[in-house]
């Protein structure tokens, strides 16, 4: 194996070597473990929660309806999703400016699944040195069992992940029953394998390479950094010059800093970097090196925090500023967007109307001298109760509406098409004009919607 420094010029691309991160305990590691349990718990548990006799969270793509607990979203509500994505992006900016790559270290799916795959690996292959020993050892029954067991566990875990993923889009209990009977549809099978396969490859093999080569956020996050952003950092002034020393030797008498050069920070790093070289874009701010270094500092009797969460200003001994123009702007924007989202969602109309002209005839002249146009009025009831709707028209003098009334019942979550004849006295109109067709719930005044339509009449 060779370190990057050993690669000769012109050969910048060495084959990737596997990184064996050393297991570590400490406060940040406990926090990360907690994050893994909570986030994976939500991911695997959420599709099993029931709400009103249906799955609580179900993105029902075949029916084009998204159920999120008590809320049902239709394609017409798409802008909420866009809005949510903008909020998510801005949150990422905000937290990056504030605390650096906390998302990468604690919440990114890549980190979370990699972490759980590493746990499985340790369960079968032991700790870091045992893993490296096993990798070098010749094939034996034990090696086959350990490596094979790991692969089986990985594959099962990945398949369960894929199954859960599809369970967000098609009722998960029925999907499970179908899988047991080998009767899943082609696309269900495909997506279970696709997502499961992606999890297996990403978390089992690609791991930190995803962060290094494929993640755009890792590259552009520096634009959101400033000297007050919290980063995982090595206190160079305190640590250097680094070097091994005997116990009870005063490092100052030997001209040494606090770093005992034990390389624990490098061994625990999941991306295989040396934090002492400064902030690098490979660093996902998982803080494993902080835990490792604190442990060592405690052992040798030095103060903790040689590697710590700090800001550039903090390292230079200057005041830390959390409130600054950048964070203020992000926070204000975020607050406005979140508040707007809440208000809009709360006031969202649960009915909608779509008016489509009858294609067969432009107009009909009735014996009573009036002009008749036919429309198909589609009433969409997004509410969770049925409503009875009245249909009215306005915008033209003497307009009359004729439909199978007096009210039209629309079941919850249903679209009801109503053929509607609209008549206008011939004297009142020439050519064409716009009119407004409105619906209102007879059982709940104030609940309604309206749509525009073109009324066509003879030109003479």
């Amino acid at each position: 194996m060779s370190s990057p420094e050993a690669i000769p010029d012109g050969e910048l691309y060495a084959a990737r070597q596997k990184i064996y991160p050393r297991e570590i305990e400490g406060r940040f590691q406990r926090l990360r473990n907690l994050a893994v349990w909570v986030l994976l718990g939500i991911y695997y548990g959420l599709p099993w929660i029931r709400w009103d006799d249906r799955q609580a969270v179900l993105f029902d793509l075949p029916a084009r309806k998204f159920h999120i607990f008590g809320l049902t979203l239709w394609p017409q509500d798409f802008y909420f999703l866009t809005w949510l994505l903008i909020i998510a992006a801005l949150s990422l900016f905000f937290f990056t400016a504030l605390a650096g790559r906390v998302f990468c270290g604690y919440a990114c799916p890549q980190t979370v699944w990699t972490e759980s795959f590493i746990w499985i690996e340790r369960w079968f292959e032991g700790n870091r040195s045992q893993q490296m020993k096993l990798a070098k050892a010749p094939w034996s029954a034990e090696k086959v069992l350990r490596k094979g067991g790991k692969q089986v566990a990985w594959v099962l875990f990945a398949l369960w992940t894929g199954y859960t993923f599809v369970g967000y889009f098609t009722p998960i209990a029925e999907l499970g029953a179908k899988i047991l009977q080998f009767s899943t549809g082609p696309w269900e099978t495909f997506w279970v394998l696709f997502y499961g396969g992606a999890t297996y490859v990403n978390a089992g093999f690609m791991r930190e390479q995803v962060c290094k080569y494929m993640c755009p956020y890792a590259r552009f996050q520096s634009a959101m950094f400033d000297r007050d952003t919290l980063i995982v950092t090595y206190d160079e002034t305190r640590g250097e010059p680094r070097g091994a020393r005997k116990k009870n030797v005063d490092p100052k008498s030997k001209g040494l800093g606090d770093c005992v050069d034990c390389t624990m920070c490098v061994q625990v790093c999941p991306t295989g970097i040396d934090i002492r070289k400064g902030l690098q874009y490979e660093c996902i701010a998982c803080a494993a090196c902080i835990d490792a270094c604190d442990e060592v500092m405690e052992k040798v009797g030095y103060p903790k925090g040689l590697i710590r969460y700090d800001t550039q200003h903090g390292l230079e001994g200057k005041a830390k500023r959390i409130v600054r123009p950048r964070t203020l702007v992000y926070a204000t924007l975020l607050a406005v967007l979140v508040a707007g989202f809440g208000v809009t969602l709360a006031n969202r109309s649960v009915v909608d109307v779509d008016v489509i002209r009858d294609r067969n005839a432009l107009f009909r002249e009735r014996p009573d001298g009036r002009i008749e146009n036919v429309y198909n009025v589609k009433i969409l009831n997004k509410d969770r109760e049925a409503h009875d709707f009245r249909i009215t028209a306005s915008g033209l003098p003497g307009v009359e509406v004729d439909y199978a009334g007096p009210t039209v019942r629309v079941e919850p979550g249903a679209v009801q098409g109503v053929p509607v004849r609209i008549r206008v006295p011939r004297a009142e109109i020439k050519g064409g004009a716009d009119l407004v067709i409105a619906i209102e719930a007879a059982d709940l005044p104030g609940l309604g919607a309206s749509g525009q339509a073109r009324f066509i009449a003879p030109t003479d």
Partner: protein
Amino acid sequence: MPLLGDEYAGAVRWPRLWQDVAIVAWPSFLVAAVATMICFAFIDPLLVGHDDFPPPAFATRMSGYAIGFFFFWLISALSSLLTLYLARTARPETPEKETQGDWTRSVP
């Protein structure tokens, strides 16, 4: 105390081919996911080509979404591939430097 020895893999790089595949496939995957969402929020796959001469394009909505997604992925991957090709084959304006790690020191 063990020093960084043979066992330290360090921040080594992927082979170039892997990098190329990754940086073409992954961004186009992300873009395709977004494009699929936007496209099918407005278009119901069951109505594509419906009651016109070409018969309905998709038998089920799920197949419409899936085929749509892979179509977008293919198109955006082609674009990524061309961009990568142009970027890789351009004559460098300054002699190429080893840039890995430089980012670290350039943080404001």
